[in-house]
């Protein structure tokens, strides 16, 4: 891997704008990956002002996004090859490089059909002679606060561009690489510069942009949900807390399936399963999962076969203390299988998170649904009388049961965002289907246009 740090600067209205406030972004192993120019509040405000005066709400041609997706996945951009990009994200965030590779393909595919993605989330507009309904943007500027855990959430702000928005992106502190590369790809594909600004900075810059833009899109944890959840001009994408209900006999095939759902992409996605509710012997299932998950190789995230995420060495101790606190009172099925517990150090000096399976009999407690950015799963008993209650607050609920009535009630549960029935991966979808409600519905609204008919 090229060890020269790359230089990342704020982008204002499509133009790279060097900042005098600079910081170094280090990989989790301590090497310097990037020299990042930060946008303080006034630089961000300068961007808002220029974007606001340039905003014209026109939507670029869909081909711009398709071309940008191809460039993102395959071209050298800002002197960075696709392979360098993937290595940087993996080294900075600890996500296995395979996950970043799949995400690159996912982004390319999504950008190839932004129009379809948007249209699928909106009712077909009404139109008869003289009477038309148009879906139009609710504002001119969107502020997007994007996360570090995975590159694909960045697709959402690209979709806002495709609906005519000007977008101000505050990248995650560990992954400015994905938004930077996307911005470069979009500009190279012909996106007008004044549609986009990229403003690296702290928490307060995100807050400021959300306050100043017309609409905000925030990826974050429980804090972000508490801060912005009640605002109708801010869409918060919080923790996934995805869950599976197991109401079928315990078999090898079932265990293999759950291992995949829990640990695919190193367990860093919001639709990886964080809790398994079991109708039957939940302890036995927890043991089997722990045994099987413990076999995942402890490879450096940038290794092509890496399966587990890394964390920074300085967070190892706090992580151990946190895990001790959060799983207090639960049975730990994993740690005794590892020489030094789930937080482990590899020979080449990385701190890896090995899978952690815990079980509890407190089906309705806070532990069920706790989401952590590695293969972490809580196994708890489920009985008919529990019904949908322990399955609430989930991005995805996977139902392995022939209880059709339960599926109907889960679909009706507002805090459950997607239901998957039977042995299908939780993230299985079609482009026509929503991931979490209607992003297009948040960004646009229907407006009536009535014309006088010409005299007949």
């Amino acid at each position, binding site marked *: 891997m090229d060890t020269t740090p790359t230089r990342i600067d704020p982008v204002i209205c499509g133009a790279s704008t060097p*900042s005098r*406030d600079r910081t170094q972004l280090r990989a989790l192993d301590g090497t310097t990956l990037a020299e990042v120019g*930060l946008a303080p*509040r*006034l630089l961000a405000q300068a961007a*808002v002002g220029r974007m606001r005066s340039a905003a014209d709400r026109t939507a670029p041609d869909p081909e711009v996004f398709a071309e940008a997706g191809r460039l993102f996945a395959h071209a050298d951009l800002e002197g960075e090859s696709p392979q360098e990009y993937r290595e940087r994200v993996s080294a900075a965030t600890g996500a296995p490089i395979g996950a970043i590779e799949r995400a690159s393909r996912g982004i390319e595919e999504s950008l190839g059909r932004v129009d379809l993605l948007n249209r699928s989330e909106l009712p077909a507009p009404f139109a008869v002679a003289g009477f038309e309904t148009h879906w139009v943007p609710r504002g001119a500027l969107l502020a997007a606060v994007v996360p570090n855990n995975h590159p694909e959430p960045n697709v959402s702000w690209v979709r806002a561009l495709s609906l005519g928005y000007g977008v101000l992106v505050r990248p995650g502190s560990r992954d400015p690489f994905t938004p930077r590369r996307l911005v470069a790809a979009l500009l190279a594909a012909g996106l007008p510069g004044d549609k986009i600004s990229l403003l690296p900075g702290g928490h307060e810059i995100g807050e*400021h942009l959300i306050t100043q833009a017309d609409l905000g899109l925030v990826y974050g944890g429980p804090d972000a949900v508490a801060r912005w959840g009640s605002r109708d001009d801010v869409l918060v994408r919080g923790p996934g807390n995805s869950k599976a209900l197991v109401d079928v006999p315990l078999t090898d095939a079932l265990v293999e399936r759950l291992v995949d759902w829990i640990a695919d992409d190193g367990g860093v996605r919001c639709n990886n399963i964080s809790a398994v509710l079991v109708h039957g012997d939940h302890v036995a299932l927890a043991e089997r999962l722990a045994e099987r998950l413990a076999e995942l190789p402890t490879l450096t995230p940038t290794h092509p076969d890496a399966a587990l995420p890394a964390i920074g060495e300085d967070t190892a101790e706090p992580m151990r203390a946190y895990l001790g606190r959060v799983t207090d009172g639960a049975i730990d099925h994993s740690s005794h299988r590892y020489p030094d517990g789930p937080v482990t150090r590899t020979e080449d000096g990385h701190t890896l998170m090995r899978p952690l399976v815990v079980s509890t009999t407190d089906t309705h407690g806070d532990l069920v649904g706790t989401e952590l950015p590695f293969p972490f799963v809580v196994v708890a008993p489920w009985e008919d009388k529990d019904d949908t209650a322990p399955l609430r607050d989930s991005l995805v609920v996977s139902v392995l049961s022939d209880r059709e009535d339960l599926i109907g009630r889960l679909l009706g549960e507002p805090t459950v965002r997607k239901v998957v029935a039977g042995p299908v991966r939780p993230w299985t979808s079609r482009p026509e289907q929503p991931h979490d409600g209607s992003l297009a519905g948040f960004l646009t609204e229907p407006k009536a246009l009535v014309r006088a008919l010409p005299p007949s």
Partner: protein
Amino acid sequence: MHELLDGWTAPQAAADPDAYLRAILEWHFSPATGSPFWLERAPRLGFDPIADVKELGDLRRFPDLSDELRTVRAEDLVPTGAHGTPFEVFESGGTTGAPKRVVDGLSRGRNVDWVGRVLSEHGFPEEGNWLHVGPSGPHVVGRTIKHLAASRGGLCFTVDFDPRWVKKLLAQGRTELAAEYREYLLDQVELIVDSQDIRVLFITPPVLESLCSRASLYERVAQRLEGLMWAGTSVSPETLWQIENTFFPNASVAAIYGNTIMGIAPQRPRLDDDTQPCVFVPFFPQSVVEVIDAEGAPVAYGERGRVLMHLLARDMFLPNVLERDTAIRLAPAPGGTTDGLADIAPFQDGTGTKVIEGVY
């Protein structure tokens, strides 16, 4: 009176600071002219301040009594020899507990007169109205800005601004309420600039950032502004660049560093080979500022150290006050004799008491 002390103009004092120091000590420690505060404490010092203190270096022999300013009767601070001059009392920000009180009749005015001359060097307008968006009341900066405006023939508009309330909010993590307070200040600013011709603005960086984020207000202010003076919290290099070049390219911009104890150190005009964007120069020798290491020795030029200050004014003598700030010590500018201070930052002593910089 345009002298610092009878027989001492500011240039004379700067030319022979040790002799000025001896004159100041004679004033503050002679029974006919000294303050009850010092005359009462003099016998307990263990040395004779008039006979034994000969030069600035000897100031270190004094204890730091500034904590007593939190509780001492303020009238006891007034030098007997200054009776007849109207005095006022001011208080520190209260960042670290109860505020310290200082008294002043004329001395700080001399400092401010000099700041006015430095502002002229920066290109600040010689006339026009000022707007002070900063503390007044017990805080000396309010009077300072009014004095500057008046000395240049302008009116000084003010808004009520209570920095202690904001600091309390920030200490409690109530950032939304603090933001609301800033907006409330700006509502008042808006009512002033709507109808009044404001040419010079004093403001703190957090409130300035909010002002720049209110597009219509910002445009009205920036259109007419010829001078912008800021103080109170540090700003990042890019923030300063944005203030000077993006938001107020047509105004002269200067910062002041100061506090209740030492008075005001204005930013000096920038030199071509400056590496620091803001270099502050104290009003020497009425204000003597040292930058010291943990052992109390002055740090080398270019190094960071803790700020130690001595106030050698007719109206108040206060030696050896260790501030909560750190600064980089810089060599005097060509033609000058006073060290510069740059990149002021809060002192972190590691005891866990978090200093709240706040909006002021």
